[in-house]
């Protein structure tokens, strides 16, 4: 057990724990908090991979900005605790097998590719490398994404306007 591995397992456990709490928690704020834990744990995992920039941005953008927005809206709506309901029939029939299948696929994929991924050189880790990738190689998809987000913002504005 290298220290890295220990840290990895701790963070991974934290992430999984957070994700489970996110679903199981009855109060929206608790779910949001659990999601923040997941985000921060993921950032730690990135850091472990040597992707400092991505880790920091993960916390700043997801942990900071987006989740604050979530918390803000939950507080603004003054959302109360959820009622606990029994699983719906579709969920029982289709959901559980599907979830199992998905986890199986993921596990298989991870097991098969673990060696190849570990050997792959980390090009995108540094800030410089990342910007090279983003603004040179993938500049078109990058710009397209920002355009997409702009469209989404406009859509949200239109929807909000219609309410009034």
């Amino acid at each position, binding site marked *: 057990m290298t220290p890295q591995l220990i840290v990895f397992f701790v963070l991974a456990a934290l992430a999984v724990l957070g994700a489970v709490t996110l679903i199981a928690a009855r*109060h929206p*704020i*608790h779910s949001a*908090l659990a999601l*923040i834990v997941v985000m*921060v744990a993921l*950032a730690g995992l990135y850091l472990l991979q040597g992707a*400092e*920039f991505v880790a*920091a*941005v993960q*916390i*700043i953008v997801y*942990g*900071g*900005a987006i989740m*604050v*927005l979530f*918390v*803000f809206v*939950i*507080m*603004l709506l*003054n959302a109360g605790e959820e009622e606990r309901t029994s699983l719906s029939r579709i969920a029982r029939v289709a959901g559980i097998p599907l979830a199992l299948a998905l986890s199986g696929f993921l596990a298989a994929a991870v097991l098969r590719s673990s060696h190849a991924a570990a050997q792959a050189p980390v090009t995108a880790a540094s*800030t410089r490398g990342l910007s090279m990738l983003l603004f040179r190689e993938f500049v078109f998809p990058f710009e397209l994404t920002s355009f997409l987000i702009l469209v989404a913002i406009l859509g949200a504005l239109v929807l909000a306007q219609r309410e009034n």
Partner: protein
Amino acid sequence: MTDIINILRQHSFLVIALVKCGLLLFILLTVLAYLSLFERKVLAHIQSRWGPYRVGPHGLLQPLADGLKFLFKEDPMPAGVDRFVFLLAPFLSLALALTSLAVIPFGPQPLRFSILGTQYETSLGIVDLNIGLLVLFAITALGVYGVALAGWASNSKYPLLGGLRSSAQMMSYELALTMSVVGVILMAGSFNLREIVTAQEGRMFFGLLPRWNVIAGPFPQIIGFFCYFVAAIAETNRAPFDLPEAESELVAGFNTEYASFKFAMFFMGEYANMITVSCLATIMFFGGWTSPFPSAWSWTHFIPSALLAVLGVLLLIDGIRYETILGKLVLPGVGTALCALSALLLFFAPVNNYIQGPFWFLLKVFIFIFFYVWMRGTLPRFRYDQLMAIGWKILLPLSIANVLLTSLGILKWGLR
């Protein structure tokens, strides 16, 4: 015994880091306590009154009394609160605020010392990260939760409004805060705080002016600094942006329901944040530990000792004339100690040279903190919508313009 020493030696890096953490924490908590006295004193003098002066000479023991009061006060838990979140919030506030100071470098030269014949070397500052600035912003970004969750968990209306205000406020200003430093990052080409300072070393205008980012080319970051400073005040919830805890409107905002040490934690968190953003302003725009004077002016090296000596003599004179016996004993004692320290610096040139960097750094930070207090004594409070308007309509466009202009400047003239 030797085993333990051997183990310690093997893990000297870890041990030194831990000791540094402990030391910084100790100094920081003391400074936080005295910062509250400083603020009260300065505010008092702005408002033509004396401020605390009953506990100890010149109120010097007031922080201690305050601390004890916080510890021994009843710690009520209001009905219907979300216990976990209610307790988590102040903890988050303080812990994150203290953590953020870990990435701040306080001086240029590493500290060399030897224990039991082994040489050790360590930098001034706890960690030296390549992405120090980003880490700082990440921690600040998480700091919002302390306030927002406190407001929500209190199960009370004023705190809820305070929490809402703070989450909206911090979200808006974080954007401007982050954008405002991009210019500095471009000029330094690094997220490393140490490198950002190093990039500002040197002189310009025939050696008259320091090459600090705030005035130096290719594009002086004066706009960036303005945006940063305003956003930083808002981010730390200080006057005139102290809406989340606006006493006259929301009673005390998010911390209405908090008492005792939990309240003290918010309080300390706020002051720690104040120190952090002041440190950051110093590092990014005012050359960190670089002296404002040319290095050829060797007499400037005696400024720290001169300041100490003047302060010591003043304290000595004041102390002899002080009313209480404790004051007559303590104040001259402190004054003598300061004079002795000044003399020590005069006679030990290596020590004097070593403290130059930290001295300028701390002096600049101190000036910023004074500004903070000064503003609190002068300005009324913004209104919520005005605050949002400033954040989104003025600061953000300005800081984006600053990024553009800086990039163009770098393109045109290169990095100096």
